[in-house]
């Protein structure tokens, strides 16, 4: 399709002066439509109500019996867990292992050691398998109760609920799948180590093998319940690593059971007071997009999702009248639903944006938005490629390039006099040879330059991260000026070469972003949006004879420098409470930036998060080349 577009535009753009001028306007239109499209999504006409697609789930159709004297047991477990708060990981696991064994479960333990940003993260997971009474280890569902949640809070109630529930589950004979209770010491590295080892994709130097295993994982629920008081509703966290999402049916089931059966509220994306109006829907969707775009783990469930195991974290929130038993019943109901599944969850959507717990848009509706923005780069790139093939209109005939101008001596000249008569001589632009060497080497060089910071920031100790990042940002701000000066003095690039440079980097950017849009819509959209000014770069000094305009545009681009954007975002979100996982932490801006960079290095090293790659090897090179062109 791109090929045919290119040929078509090559046919028309070269001939018609109106079409020659059109591409920038088309690009601008695409950007505007793309952004407007996103803002249309929360409207009733464009989003849909959620529904349960997999009939086998039957959420909320079973009676839940977790209660009564099980609460006495739960209270005892809470005392037991509370008493272990300040013990070491090994002591805790010894105690838990003993408890699991006395319940009649099979227990396994697993060590892991990760090193990122000079910090060593080591720990030991303990997990217990409740073998399905009549099953044969072909399938399993996972209950995760991390010792500490992502914020580092002690998950005392969560673990107590998980223990009491497991003891209760043991009494049922209806389980068709094994139930695995995993207790990692933290919510970030521990689950990742466990899931990796379960699927045998771990590096055995860092993560130990699992001593016992069960069947294929069909779903995972994580409990995150550090608060001591009774709660009002549950907060469902669903974002996975690299913006992958669990099947929508799982979220719907939990929402359905919580509201329909338990009378609990449920909320998503920290929107605890959502009144289902346009504004709230948009905020909710944008928060989801930020989390998806960052691609980091937001809960212990996140590590499961890349392995096609649908997983969510349930966090009780607010002050209300529901107690731990209510949470236990909610999880019981969810497990009963998952237990009903004959097949892996596959019916409902894997690509969606939720804008309220019961309203979503699916990929078919939202994807055009990011695709249009990505397409704007491609269209300009193609237009510039075509343009660069023709000599400029007002050829003075005195340039050194004259020799290379190869006027087409088409057959029109002689025989077909009629046609030659109809076309004015101005329209017949002569084609020229394209000088590819300089543009190609510049774009390729800058593209590979991105790997340097990618490597550096994933291997530098955390104390050096912030100063190094600020230095890199400052360097990257001066880099275009230096490069431009060097180019102008050494090579004296022509207008055509600038056109080709722009064409190449825009082509790459458009290609990367449109591919990325299918994998991680939000990241592609956000990077695309921040890179839109690059579509309109233009060698102001050389062509428009307006060096001042060039500097002004360069200043605008400096504001949108990847480094500057990250620094700004880190500082801005410190107080606004959303994004980057910094909400509620009392940090100085310096620490905040360090936190973000550590997270990025951790994500790259432990989770296999590719956001740093997109940042340094897609966005950063495009920005550098774009800025060089503006200064040309």
């Amino acid at each position, binding site marked *: 399709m791109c090929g045919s577009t290119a040929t078509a535009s090559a046919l028309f753009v070269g001939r018609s002066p109106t079409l020659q001028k059109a591409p920038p306007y088309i690009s601008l239109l695409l950007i505007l439509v793309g952004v407007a499209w996103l803002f249309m999504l929360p409207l009733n006409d464009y989003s849909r109500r959620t529904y349960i697609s997999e009939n086998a789930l039957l959420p909320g159709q079973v009676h839940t*019996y*977790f*209660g*009564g*004297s*099980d*609460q*006495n*047991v739960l*209270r*005892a*477990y809470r*005392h*037991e867990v509370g008493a272990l708060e300040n013990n070491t990981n090994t002591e805790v696991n010894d105690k838990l292992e003993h408890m699991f064994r*006395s319940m*009649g479960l*099979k227990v396994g333990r697993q060590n892991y050691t990760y090193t990122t940003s000079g910090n060593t993260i080591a720990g030991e997971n303990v997990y217990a398998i409740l*073998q399905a*009474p*009549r*099953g*044969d*280890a*072909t*399938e399993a569902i996972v209950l995760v109760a991390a010792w500490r949640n992502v914020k580092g809070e002690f998950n005392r109630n969560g673990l107590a609920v998980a223990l009491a529930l497991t*003891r*209760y589950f043991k*009494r*049922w*004979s209806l389980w068709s799948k094994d139930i695995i209770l995993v207790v990692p010491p933290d919510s970030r590295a521990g689950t990742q180590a466990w899931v990796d080892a379960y*699927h*045998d*994709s771990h590096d055995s130097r860092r993560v130990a093998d699992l001593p*016992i*295993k069960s*069947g*294929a994982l069909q779903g995972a629920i994580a409990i995150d319940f550090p608060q001591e008081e009774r709660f009002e509703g549950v907060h469902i966290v669903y974002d996975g690593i690299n913006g992958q999402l669990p099947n929508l049916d799982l979220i719907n089931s939990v929402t359905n059971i919580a509201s329909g059966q338990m009378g609990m509220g449920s909320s998503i994306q920290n929107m605890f007071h959502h009144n289902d109006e346009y504004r709230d829907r948009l905020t909710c969707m944008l928060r989801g997009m930020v989390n998806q775009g960052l691609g980091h783990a937001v809960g212990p469930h996140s590590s499961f999702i890349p*392995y*096609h195991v649908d997983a969510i974290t349930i966090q009780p929130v607010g002050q209300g009248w529901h107690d731990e038993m209510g949470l236990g019943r909610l999880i019981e109901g969810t497990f009963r639903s998952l237990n009903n599944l*004959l*097949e*892996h969850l*596959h019916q409902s959507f894997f690509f969606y944006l939720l804008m309220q717990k019961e309203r979503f848009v699916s990929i078919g509706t939202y994807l055009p938005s990011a695709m249009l923005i990505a397409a704007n780069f491609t269209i300009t790139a193609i237009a510039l490629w075509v343009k660069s093939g023709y000599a400029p209109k007002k050829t003075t005939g005195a340039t050194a390039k004259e020799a290379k101008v190869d006027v087409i001596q088409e057959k029109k000249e002689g025989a077909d006099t009629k046609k030659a008569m109809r076309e004015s001589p101005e329209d017949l632009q002569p084609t020229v040879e394209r000088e590819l060497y300089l543009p190609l080497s510049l774009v390729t060089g800058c593209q590979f330059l991105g790997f340097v910071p990618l490597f550096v920031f994933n291997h530098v100790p955390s104390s050096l991260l912030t100063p190094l990042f600020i230095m890199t940002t400052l360097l990257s701000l001066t880099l275009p000026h230096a490069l431009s000066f060097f180019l102008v003095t050494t090579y004296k690039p022509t207008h055509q070469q600038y056109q080709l440079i722009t064409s190449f980097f825009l082509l790459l950017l458009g290609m990367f972003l449109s591919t990325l849009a299918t994998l991680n819509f939000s990241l592609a959209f956000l990077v695309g949006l921040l890179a839109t000014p690059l579509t309109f770069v233009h060698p102001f000094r050389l062509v428009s004879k307006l060096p001042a305009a060039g500097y002004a545009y360069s200043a605008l681009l400096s504001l949108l420098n990847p480094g500057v954007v990250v620094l700004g975002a880190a500082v801005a979100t410190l107080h606004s409470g959303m994004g980057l996982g910094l909400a509620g932490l009392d940090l100085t801006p310096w620490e905040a930036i360090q936190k973000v960079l550590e997270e990025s290095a951790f994500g790259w090293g432990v989770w296999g998060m590719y956001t740093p790659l997109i940042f340094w090897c897609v966005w950063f090179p495009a920005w550098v080349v774009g800025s060089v062109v503006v200064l040309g």
Partner: protein
Amino acid sequence: MQLSFTSLIPLLPFFLSPVSASTAPAAADYHEQLNLKPLPQNSLLASFNFRSNTSLPEFEAHNFRFFPRSLGQILQHAGTRELHLRFSLGRWDAETWGARPWDGTKEGGTGVELWAWLDAESDAEADQKWLTLTNALSGLFCASLNFIDSTRTTRPVMSFRPEGDHPNTTMDNMHLLHGVLPREVVCTENLTPFLKLLPCKGKAGVSSLLDGHKLFDASWQSMAIDVKPVCPVGEECVLQIEQTIDMVLDIERSKRPRDNPIPRPIPGHELKCNTTKPYHAEDTCFPTDSLNAQEWTLDQIFGKHMLGNCPLTDPKTPPVCIQAPHSRDVFTSMDVQELKESGNENQRCYLLPSNEEEFHLALPFMPRDGDRPKTDADEFVQPATPLLYAERSLTGHGQEHGGVQAILTNPSPDSEVEFVYMESLPWFMRIYLHTLKARISHRTGSDAGQTLRDDDEVIQEIYYRPFLDRKRGTQLEIRMKIPPGSTVFMSYDFEKTILRYTEYPPDANRGFDVAAAVITILPSNSTAAAAAAVGKVARTSNLRTTGMLLNLPTPDFSMPYNVIIFTSTCIALAFGGLYNILVRRFVGRDEGPEVSLVKLRRRLQEAVQKLKGRIQEKLGVASKEAKKLEAKSD
């Protein structure tokens, strides 16, 4: 009787063939026995065994007494020399329950497993008879045995040996065929025909205890049917059918009444709490290990009373035996005779008077504290350590490649174990034999605790029959030897096949069940020698791993419908034009039939032409005449 009685004790490490050990089985007789064995962690193993013999001449003459006629006719029709059929569910927890009953020879992998020796001249004839046999059994047992087609049938080479006594002349023409249905769910509908084969049909005797609700609620259960010819020395040969049901019941779960099976929380005051905890209170209770103290009665756990003796059974065989330490209190109905065998301290059997209406058996609660505290050793016999632990799981993830890892542990501190590991894999699991690796880690010896190392000594022999797409599956038999106290990690990789759209089963996203691996432990040299000394053949024992669930790349099944709709639209649009072009006959404008208006115009034109012609003619005539006149005048 004494000897055949001994042979029914399960869990002897290498137990000898019941019949070759017994001296005088009657030509046609019937035995039944229930063996109860309390296991750790609140479980109970119940083994039902029903055995009847019929003499071969009577069998040939269609004279069935205890032998079920329906099955007998099938066997005769399909030329079956020996038949083994298994229905199994759940998994045996070797870690807790120890060695398997009957040394694992009477169990199958999850689902249905069938193997038989058929009398046939050629492989093709054997296949034909196998087809007859599977289809007939499928009808008899309400199981989908007819789905055992060529892709699921293997001909094991090393793993199975005939259990019966076959004369050498027939041995040459016997073909062993083996098939598994790992996905078959065993249920009540399989139990009913199974019970119908029994002489007392579940109406009296130990079989009256069998109830689908309890059997299929068991943690592990296996139903087995073995038919084989047995030739005791100096007597005429008999055909023996042995039906076995083994199940492990969770006592707490089984005791729940049938009309209220929901495990509701018990009242708080009935909870057994650890009162030593500092936080112990009215509403806070740390539960004590309630897993060990057992307390049950026969009718509680089976949900039914045992209705006396089966009148057809051999009156000298005690119908119920229990394997528990003699210090375990056991109460029975009055006038039941308890037999304690001198040689076996842990066995008690109960002989019922022939007029007994109902038999009751109760094992009371034995307090762990008080003046005479009891321990676990009083409660149950510590299970024997199995010869081998085996665990198998899938490795890897993704839609393209995968791997299988089997972890095989020899727990014995001093003797090595030799066995045949057999996998019958579906054809869509394309295994790479070159990736087959056995790594070993020793727990004892000079290199104890060291990391895994490759070992060529472990694998002794490989028999491999590769798959053929859509025709037959992979058959892999590996003879291995594991030194004492060592663990072998055997692994191989495979590639997943993309199936055709119609080859996916219903619920395609569930994945494909892969049958359990069959492990046949060969008798060690010392055992074999000991058996040979008394003129017997040492028996093998068996073990099966759990099944696996293989996820193949599965298409989105709504996609074909989208494609169908899309193509239909395209065809509908294109068809009109194309059809039009194909069937239309193109003719020149002047050749075709004319439309009325054109015709009218043409007629008019013609008329005008005619008129013109006439006028011109007249004028021409006139001018000619004029010319003539002129010429004349000239």
